[in-house]
Structures are given as structure tokens and as C-alpha cells.
């Protein structure tokens, strides 16, 4: 019997018949035997672990074992490769084209599949950097398993962006914490948990007195006013206090005169999360619910939504609004990490969580400013509180520091008014530090006189960065280009923004500096055991998730936004708009968005873990704390980011030195 040589092996595979392979076809007592230890290794190593038993046997049947001494070349770039290699023990280094480090692999890692999938020569030289025992699967078997098993095929996808998108879909699909049903509650539509009570509404022609009587009788604090079933406006207890009692308004006045016209509404099909975000962002506690035809169907309260979510830690926004001191406010914001943990473990995707955390951050700024103004008196001239960076982008995580400034309005006189705004800034900044938003290390705070300017002052500051860019100034000023008004005269910030973006858009040299500054980030290659692997073969022991992975995507989106005058501030919105404008390839935009969501999710899960262990919250991640799933997809994200940074540099800085 000569069935053991190479030809015999291929024949076996061509004839693949699962029942014959898995059964005992050699007669009683004589078993073609999978080696128990080989099978056990496959059972505990993805993607073989996820194969069904029969197909895992097919894999085991094909396996050959080879040994390579440290320093030996296993495959040379450019050579044919017939194997999927699975490292059983030892370590392997892959060099693209034989010269450029592309990965270091350890036990349970696979290599060789890209050339099998392309049916072309190996692109990497694979060298044993430790004595290696490899389990090798012949290309034929690899292709059989790929054809038959979707999970196996997906695992070995050579399109890393497709893998990333699937990872994001998977996280959104089941959420990181299996079996936590509250994950569903977040996405439940408003329609699915409407309060049972009938909606109480009034006619706008009612007098103020009649409307108040109706609200008292029905025991509601919010009265929607409708004409022909369509919502015209809304009146609340607060309106009755402020606009009627306080000014001793005639009770016969039509209620229409004191209502808030065209109030914010939420649709029946919107999610509980969307309602919560809307309330958080606008500091309101009730939302009228309308159906697809625009007819009013209910009013939901924050309590309705929070009851549905079952997470009382989410009541923070209401508490911030009620806080009478920085101290009280600190009690409320201190629960932000728990609330974020609850949302993360409920499977809320990271972009919603950053939105929520940013809304809380914004609310804290606003409340502290109100408290400061209550102490110092009203501002002598109009002004706006502007925030920069992640808060402006609605991308705040935990442990963020403060980045803010004042845009001072018409009539500002340095000599007359500076002391008021300096005092206001001091109270705001100290308050923020007290409630958990650390002082900005770069001194981007309204306490810095250079962050308190009138429109012209700000414009000249930005103008300087744009007109005479230098690499360090570009790095330092990047976050100023993400700005959003938090309180005061929003139009001041809007005008500043428009002016700055118009100026930046036309300045190719400035854009090239921005692109090169972004591209200078050292994005890691991947991981090797418990180390982070860099291009220069250095092994670091900690990943700075924000600086080394999230920030470069933010930078890419910002460059495109500046180049095309895109008004969106959020990274995902900017990527979307850049694709729509034709500035960024739609596929690149989609890939970067998936990478961004994945990275933010990893960050929140990591921070939730730090919180649970009582450690300080940071963006620093030791690789040993990463699951295999996260490591592999982080590696994909790194590669994607590196590719897109190169593209950014050649698009914006090509030809310029």
C-alpha cells in the first residue's frame, strides 16, 4: 500500500467524502487516526475551533508537521507557497518583499493564506525567529474548507476592511456582553413602550387660565397644543411659572402667546436611545411623539425612557440641570463612568456612547457657566462659550480634559470687560476640573487670554496658523478646527467657523501641512505576543489607543472637511460628507468609519474594565488585556489607517516638500 506519499494525499482530498473520512474505513482494529493532540489543538484554535466536527477532521487529515530551526527561512517572498501554516510553537517573522517588516506571529497564528487565496507567489518572506513547530495544511484542503465553511472563509479574508466591518456588525449585533437583555431596550422603538395613558392635548385658542386648569385636572406638566391633530406648540409648568405668574400675565391671554412653537419631537420609529440623546442634548425632560403623518400620539418623559432602559445611572443630565453648585454637579458627573459602563455592556454602539458622554460634558459646561454667571452677574457684552476637540465632535470618552474658549461679541472692550471674562473663565475651568474634566495640558482653556478673543481676534489667530503654517503649530492647532458653541451667542462661533473654513479651504500649503502632520503618526503594525509591534521592529508594551489609532482617523476626516469646506464636525459625519463630495473614496470612507467605531468600542470596553478594577481611566492599553478578536481586528484597523494616511499624504502633500 503506497497511499501515503504526496500524490496519495491529494487523491484523498479530491475524493473528499466526509462520511468516509470521519468513519473507520480501514476495518476493525485498524483506525486511520487523527492524532489526539493535533485535534485538541485545532479544537482550541480559531478558525478551526468553529468548524463542525466533520470539517475539523478534514483539516486534521490534511495536516503535516514541520520543524524549523531559529533563523531558517520558511518561505521566500516570490516563491510558490502550497501551505497554510499554523504555528504550533515558536515564532515567525514576515517581511514584505523580504525587506519590510510586516508581522511577527506566535503560537496559534496562521500565515501563508494570502498567496493561497490569490493563487500566486508568497509576498512575504517567512523566517523562524524561534525554533518553530508548524502544523501545515495543504492548499487543496485549505480551499476545500474555504469553499464549504463560511466562517473559515471569513476568518481568512484578505480584505481587512471587510473583516473590520464584520467585526463592527458583530458587536452591534450581539453586543459585547452576551445575554444582557437590556441591550435590546436601548434600541427598542418609542412605539414599543409608549405610556399607556391617552395623550392630553389642548387647543391653542384656550386661554392661559383654561390651559393651566386642564393641566391641573389631568396632572400633566407638559401640554401639547394641537390644531387638527397637528402639533403647533407646547406649554410646560416652567412656562406657566416664568411667562405667566412671574410677569402677572392676564389669564385670559391665549395660550398660543406663551407656548414654545414648533417644539422638538421624536418619531414612533425612533429608538429609546435617540430620545434620551435628544433630551440630554437639549436639557429637556419631555418629548412629544409624532407618527409618520406628523400627528401627535403621546408625550414621553425622561422617566419613561429611563424606566425602559432600566438604568437609573442615566439620569445624570437631569441632575446636572438641578445642581446648585459645582459640588452637587460633581456628584452627578461622578456617575458618568458607571453610566458609560452600563451603556457599553448593554451593547450600545460606541458612537451613541460618545454622544451621550459628550452631551453630559456639554451639560456640565453649560451648568457651570450658569452658576458662574449667577455669581458674577450677566455678561457685559454678548459672548459664546466654544468647545474644541472631542467634545466639539461629540466624541468624548472617559477621562477627557477640557478644551474651551470664549468668543466675545460686539462691544467687547479689553480694558473694561477683560476682568469679568477672566473671572468667568476661572470659575468655569475650576468647576470643570472639580467635576472630572482635567485642566488642559496645552492650556486650551478660556482662562488663557489667548483663548478669549473677539471674532476678529480669533480670526487673526486662525489666519496665522493657516497662512504661515509650521509643523509644530499645525500639530498644536489641529483641535481648534473642531469647534462647537456650547452656550451664549451661537452665531459668533458659527461665523468664526465659516470664516476659518473658507480660508483653510483655499490654502493648499496649509492642507499639505495638516496631511503630513497626520501622516507622521506612528501607527503600529500589530501585536506580537504581549507586545505592540512597530515598523522599526521595536516592541512596545502599551498601545495608546487614542493617539496611535483613533486620532489619525479624526485627522483624516478633518483634513477632508477643511479641504472641502464640510461643515460637519463629527468624524463619522465628516467621512460621510467627504465621500459624498468625492474627496474620499466611498469605500475608504466606509472602512475608516468601521475602523473608528471599532476603536471607540475597544476603548470603552477597556475603560469599563479599568473602572471595574478601580484603576485610573486612560487610553493606554496593555496588549495582554486584548482578546484575540480585538487583536486581530486592531491589526486590520492599523493597516487600514496606515494605508489611508499614506493616501492622505499623497493626495494633499504630493509634490510638495
Amino acid at each position, binding site marked *: *500500500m503506497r497511499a*501515503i*506519499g*504526496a500524490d*496519495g*494525499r491529494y487523491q484523498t482530498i479530491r475524493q473528499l467524502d466526509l462520511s468516509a473520512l470521519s468513519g473507520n474505513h*480501514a*476495518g*476493525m*482494529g*485498524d*483506525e*486511520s*487516526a*487523527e*492524532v*489526539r*493532540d*493535533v485535534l485538541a*489543538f485545532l479544537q482550541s484554535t480559531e478558525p478551526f475551533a468553529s468548524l463542525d466536527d466533520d470539517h475539523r477532521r478534514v483539516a*486534521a*487529515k*490534511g*495536516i*503535516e*508537521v*514541520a*520543524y*524549523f*530551526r531559529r533563523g*531558517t527561512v520558511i518561505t521566500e517572498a516570490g516563491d510558490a507557497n502550497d501551505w497554510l501554516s499554523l504555528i*504550533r*510553537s*515558536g515564532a515567525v517573522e514576515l517581511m514584505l518583499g523580504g525587506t519590510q517588516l510586516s508581522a511577527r506571529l506566535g503560537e496559534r497564528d496562521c500565515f501563508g493564506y494570502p498567496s493561497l487565496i490569490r493563487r500566486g507567489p508568497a509576498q512575504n518572506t517567512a523566517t523562524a525567529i*524561534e*525554533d518553530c*513547530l508548524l*502544523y*501545515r495544511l495543504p492548499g487543496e484542503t485549505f480551499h476545500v474548507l474555504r469553499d464549504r465553511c463560511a466562517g473559515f472563509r471569513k476568518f481568512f479574508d484578505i480584505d481587512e476592511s471587510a473583516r473590520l466591518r464584520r467585526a463592527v456588525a458583530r458587536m452591534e449585533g450581539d453586543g459585547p456582553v452576551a445575554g444582557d437583555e437590556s441591550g435590546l431596550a436601548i434600541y427598542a422603538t418609542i412605539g414599543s413602550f409608549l405610556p399607556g395613558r391617552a395623550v392630553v392635548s389642548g387647543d391653542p385658542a384656550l386661554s392661559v387660565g383654561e390651559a393651566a386648569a386642564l393641566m391641573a385636572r389631568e396632572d400633566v406638566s407638559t401640554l401639547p397644543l394641537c390644531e387638527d391633530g397637528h402639533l403647533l406648540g407646547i406649554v410646560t409648568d416652567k412656562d406657566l411659572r416664568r411667562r405667566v405668574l412671574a410677569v402677572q400675565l392676564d389669564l385670559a391671554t391665549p395660550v398660543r402667546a406663551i407656548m414654545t412653537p414648533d417644539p422638538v419631537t421624536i418619531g414612533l420609529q425612533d429608538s429609546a436611545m435617540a430620545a434620551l440623546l435628544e433630551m440630554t442634548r437639549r436639557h429637556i425632560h419631555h418629548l412629544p411623539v409624532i407618527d409618520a403623518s406628523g400627528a401627535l400620539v403621546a408625550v414621553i418623559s425622561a422617566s419613561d425612557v429611563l424606566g425602559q432602559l432600566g438604568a437609573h445611572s442615566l439620569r445624570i443630565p437631569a441632575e446636572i440641570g438641578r445642581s446648585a453648585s459645582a459640588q452637587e454637579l460633581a456628584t452627578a458627573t461622578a456617575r458618568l463612568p458607571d453610566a458609560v459602563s452600563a451603556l457599553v455592556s448593554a451593547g450600545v454602539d460606541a458612537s451613541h456612547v460618545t454622544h451621550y458622554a459628550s452631551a453630559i460634558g456639554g451639560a456640565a459646561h453649560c451648568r457651570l457657566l450658569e452658576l458662574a454667571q449667577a455669581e458674577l452677574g450677566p455678561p457685559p457684552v454678548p459672548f459664546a462659550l466654544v468647545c474644541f476637540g472631542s467634545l466639539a465632535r461629540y466624541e468624548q470618552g472617559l477621562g477627557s480634559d477640557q478644551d474651551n474658549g470664549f468668543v466675545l461679541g460686539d462691544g467687547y472692550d479689553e480694558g473694561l470687560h477683560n476682568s469679568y471674562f477672566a473671572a468667568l473663565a476661572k470659575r468655569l475651568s475650576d468647576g470643570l476640573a472639580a467635576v472630572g474634566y482635567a485642566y488642559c495640558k496645552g492650556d486650551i482653556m478660556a482662562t488663557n487670554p489667548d483663548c478669549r478673543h473677539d471674532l476678529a481676534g480669533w480670526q487673526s489667530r486662525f489666519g496665522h496658523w493657516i497662512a504661515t503654517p509650521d509643523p509644530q503649530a499645525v500639530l498644536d492647532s489641529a483641535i481648534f478646527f473642531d469647534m462647537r458653541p456650547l452656550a451664549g451667542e451661537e452665531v459668533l462661533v458659527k461665523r468664526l467657523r465659516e470664516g476659518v473654513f473658507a480660508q483653510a479651504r483655499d490654502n493648499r500649503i496649509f492642507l499639505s501641512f495638516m496631511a503630513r502632520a497626520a501622516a507622521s503618526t506612528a501607527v503600529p503594525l500589530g501585536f506580537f505576543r504581549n507586545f505592540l509591534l512597530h515598523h522599526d521592529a521595536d516592541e512596545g508594551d502599551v498601545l495608546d489607543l487614542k493617539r496611535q489609532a483613533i486620532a489619525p482617523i479624526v485627522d483624516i476626516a478633518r483634513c477632508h472637511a477643511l479641504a472641502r469646506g464640510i461643515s460637519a464636525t463629527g468624524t463619522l459625519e465628516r467621512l460621510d460628507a467627504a465621500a459624498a463630495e468625492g474627496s474620499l473614496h466611498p469605500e475608504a470612507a466606509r472602512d475608516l468609519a468601521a475602523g473608528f467605531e471599532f476603536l471607540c468600542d475597544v476603548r470603552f470596553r477597556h475603560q469599563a474594565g479599568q473602572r471595574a478594577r478601580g484603576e485610573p481611566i486612560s487610553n493606554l492599553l496593555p496588549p495582554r488585556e486584548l482578546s484575540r478578536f480585538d487583536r486581530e481586528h486592531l491589526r486590520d484597523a492599523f493597516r487600514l489607517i496606515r494605508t489611508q494616511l499614506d493616501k492622505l499624504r499623497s493626495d494633499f502633500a504630493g509634490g510638495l516638500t
Partner: protein
Amino acid sequence: MAALWFGDPRRKFARAFAKAAAQAPAGPLADFYAAGMPTLDAAVGDAELACIDLETDGLTPRRDAILEAGIVPLAQGRLQAGQARRIRFRPAQALSSASVAIHGITDDAAARALNADEALAQLLPLLARRVLVAHFAQIEAEFLDRACRRVFGGPFVAPFVCTMQLQQRWFGGKPGEIVRLGALRVRYGLPHYAAHDGVSDALACGELLLAQIAHKSGREPTLAEMLRR
């Protein structure tokens, strides 16, 4: 050359092989010899070998029985783990409780096994024309020889490479000292495998051989230079 010292092992082996072939009665053993002698001039990377491990009821070939043979082919320097075979022998008497504990082969499992003649008829073709690799190969050589004499009335002559002996010859150690397979594998950083399973042990032994060859300095030895002495 070491070969001069001990006499050319190829010629010595060829004489023994021819003599045994001439004596073998028609049947599986005669077929084994008729397949021919394995090449001994080649290096492991250019030859076909079979790694073999026997699980036995004791260590005395005269008295104890083979319970199981595990075989893993080694061709062109690669262990064909997927082609591994296990052959169970049915023992003549009930098993000793000590060997049940060691091998995990119960009377029930043994009852599903083959009688020695059938088992050898399955086993010998897997070994034909191949150099055999075993750890402490003396056991495998003696048990197979004893079994063939008992069943076919003729000796079993095959070229063996013993990984335990190679270790001592190439890397030093006390001659004749018994070093367990698992202990040697640890020295080479090879993974832990469950011991006392014929197929796992055969693979484990084959991996050790590849590691030993990779770590040996100088040119790659031929099979003749590696044979058990």
C-alpha cells in the same frame, strides 16, 4: 568516519535483511521483505520513514503483549500527521490493571481489537521499505520481532532510528541512560503532548527527530549514520 569504526551499517543491515527475507514463510512477513530495503544513503529530507510507538502490557517482550501500534509517516522531512494510523492488538489474556491505568486501553476497547496475525498483516505494509523511528527503539524492535516470530515463524528485521540514542550520540549524555520522550521534548521547546497514546507518541517522537536534526551542527546526516547501533 564513524561508519568505519562500526563497520558499514548498510552492509551489515543488508545481510541481516536478506537472511530474514529468505527465511520468511509466504504471507505478510514475506511481503514485507519482498517490498525491498529502504534507502539508507539519503538524508531524512529525501526519504520516507515511519514513526512508530507501541503500547504494550509490560516491558518484557517474551512475556508481555502489544496492545496498540501508532504510526505516523515521515516523508520529505514532514510528518504526515493526517495519515496517522492506529492498530489495536487483542491481547491473549485479560489486561493487568497497571497497564490499563497507563494506556487507558480497557478490556472493552481491547475486545474490539484484532488478533495478532490480522494486526500484523495490517501493520507490516505501513512499515515496508521505510526506516522506522522510535524513542527507545529497542522496545519496538524486540516486541515486533517477538510477535513476528510467534505469528509467522520468522524474525522482524528493519532499520531503526532511536531518538533517545541519537540524543546521546549527537548532544552528549550518559550512554545507556533512559531519558523519557517528554523530558527531551521540553529541552527542544516542543509542546506538551499527552503521553501513552500510540499515535501521539509516534508523532511526538517524529517531531523530536526533526528538532534533533535541525539542531545538529554540520551537514545533514544520512539515514545510515543515524541508525540504532
